[in-house]
């Protein structure tokens, strides 16, 4: 019976792995193909089924006039907007979360839990509800089709994630650590940045990772709020899908778009395994 379940378990894991990995293998394979290899029936294995070429990858750096797809600028736009939006969201979100975790706020019937819910509620609404207000507001401030406008929108979208994760994290950090820091001579600000913050790195890393994932993969707002001056990577990749789709470049661009998240995942994994709160309160 044990052997049967073990076999079943491995079979399920294998099937799921294939389901997850297959699209990547497909994209990697396609990115090394050319027009003929794509259009002349199904081909899978390089050097056997088709002759690999770097054309798809070279096209990423070339302008459309040179026969390329020009995703370098959208790529760096995406990096800039995601990094700036995530960094500011983490900074503000961490401070807000610490305050919500440690201090009691009362304003009429509103309490800490309501304020936290207010932040989270920004993410509960369907994005389309926010699209028109954002469009009008950015238009009024002449921030449509600008990186700054997108960063502001991303802060609104990402900060709730940071607040949500960090409030929960700070709630698990024993208050006695802050109190001990105060007793040991720290004022409240020193207690925060000398003691609480260094012990909150795992939480900040997780919140940062989620912010980056949400920011990096956003298509909807970058599509609605940009036109010609600024283009982010998801929009640029979708724009490649035309009547004559260059599947080889599109695959290469898709892989490029995944790469930063893979790098982030590796860094985050290292941080998460390194830092933890054991020893703060046994």
């Amino acid at each position, binding site marked *: 019976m044990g052997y049967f379940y073990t076999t079943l378990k491995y079979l399920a894991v294998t099937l799921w792995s294939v389901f997850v990995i297959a699209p990547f293998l497909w994209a990697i394979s396609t990115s090394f193909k050319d027009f003929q290899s794509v259009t002349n029936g199904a081909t899978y294995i390089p050097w056997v089924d088709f002759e690999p070429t770097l054309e798809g990858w070279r096209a990423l750096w070339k302008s459309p006039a040179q026969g390329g797809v020009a995703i370098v600028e959208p790529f760096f736009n995406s990096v800039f907007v995601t990094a700036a939006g995530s960094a500011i969201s983490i900074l503000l979100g961490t401070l807000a979360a610490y305050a919500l975790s440690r201090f009691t706020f009362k304003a009429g019937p509103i309490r800490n839990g309501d304020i936290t819910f207010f932040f989270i509620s920004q993410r509960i609404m369907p994005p389309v509800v926010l699209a028109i207000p954002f469009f009008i507001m950015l238009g009024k401030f002449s921030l449509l089709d600008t990186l700054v406008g997108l960063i502001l929108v991303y802060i609104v979208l990402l900060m709730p994630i940071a607040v949500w994760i960090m409030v929960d994290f700070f709630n698990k950090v*024993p208050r006695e650590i802050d109190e001990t820091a*105060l007793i040991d001579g720290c004022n409240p600000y020193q207690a925060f940045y000398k003691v609480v913050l260094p012990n909150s790195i795992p939480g900040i890393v997780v919140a940062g990772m989620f912010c980056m994932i949400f920011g990096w993969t956003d298509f909807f707002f970058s599509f609605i709020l940009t036109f010609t001056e600024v283009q982010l990577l998801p929009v640029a990749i979708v724009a490649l899908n035309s009547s004559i789709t260059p599947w080889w470049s599109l695959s290469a661009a898709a892989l490029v778009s995944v790469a930063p998240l893979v790098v982030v995942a590796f860094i985050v994994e290292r941080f998460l395994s390194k830092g933890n709160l*054991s*020893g703060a309160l046994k």
Partner: protein
Amino acid sequence: MSLIASNLCLKPDTEYHLNDVCFEMSKGEIYTIIGRTLAGKTTLLKTIAGLIAPESGSLTLDGRDFGRIPVWKREVAMVYQQFINYPHLSVYENVAFPLKQRRMPKTEIRNRVMRALSQVGLDGFENRKIQALSGGQQQRVALARSLVKEANIVLLDEPLVNLDYKLREQLREEFRNIFSAKASENSILIYSSTDPVEAMQLGGQILVMDEGRILQQASAKEVYENPNSTKVSQITNDPAMNLFEGTVADGKVILSSEIHFDLPEHCQALPQGSYIFGLRAAAISLADGGFPFTVELSEISGSETFLHLKHENVQVVGLLDSVQNFNIGETVSAQFDTTHLYAFATDGRLKSSPYGGLK
């Protein structure tokens, strides 16, 4: 140096956490606050530390209004019942932390840290990470950090409660020596505990707390010999003092139709009437010619046996100084050592004690 609390009150919700708390503490003394869980011990310690502000009342140190000084400027050190340390720092950095905050010279910091680590038996552990230490060692680090400050007031909030029995016994002995030395350095040492044995072992002054109120403040000996109320007698004894209602009539103490005995000599002055009588578990033994009791429960604890007995409405716990087995429902003959009998008024105040009553 003296720390004086006057009428400290704190009632954040429906119940008092501090209820008209008054005390005076002097340098060079160990004070043990004893009380059950939620008695207000931690609240009182945090109030002294400045982490909690009382709603009314005052706290003065040498005549200065201590309440106006922010936590980080008060000369206090505190050890929690949880092993609170800074997990991102090494043992050395943990202990050095309060001294670095004071911007002391490095050599002075090093000397003090090494001395404190040596005091708590952690020589050679300086470079270890906190996570790499056992619970007992972590609590020693927290204690070293409180000692290194050489603070005027050292607060210890049930520091041994989360340790296993053996380690607790070992550290209790070590801590007592450290605390005695610390107290002799003109500090005020305040230790909170739920354990009467621990409180008595530490000696010094005892403050008995319940529902945010200080019920009695006296030396450990005085609190043991003359608990001023039934509540204090319950809190400061483990197992709690046996209490039973009875009457004094015709020179006799009558507890039930079958349990009555002559009024002991120290209670002769009691007028006739109803009382609550108290007898410690150790004053109840098994011997022929005693009162008939039914065994309700028998618990072996180390080399002793706690025997829960019942007769009509009289329920007592006896402490036998040997391991014995009993069957539940078995009838035994229990003898009361009435020379250790306490008498309390029906409102709980001490009326008569084998040690002469309140001084």
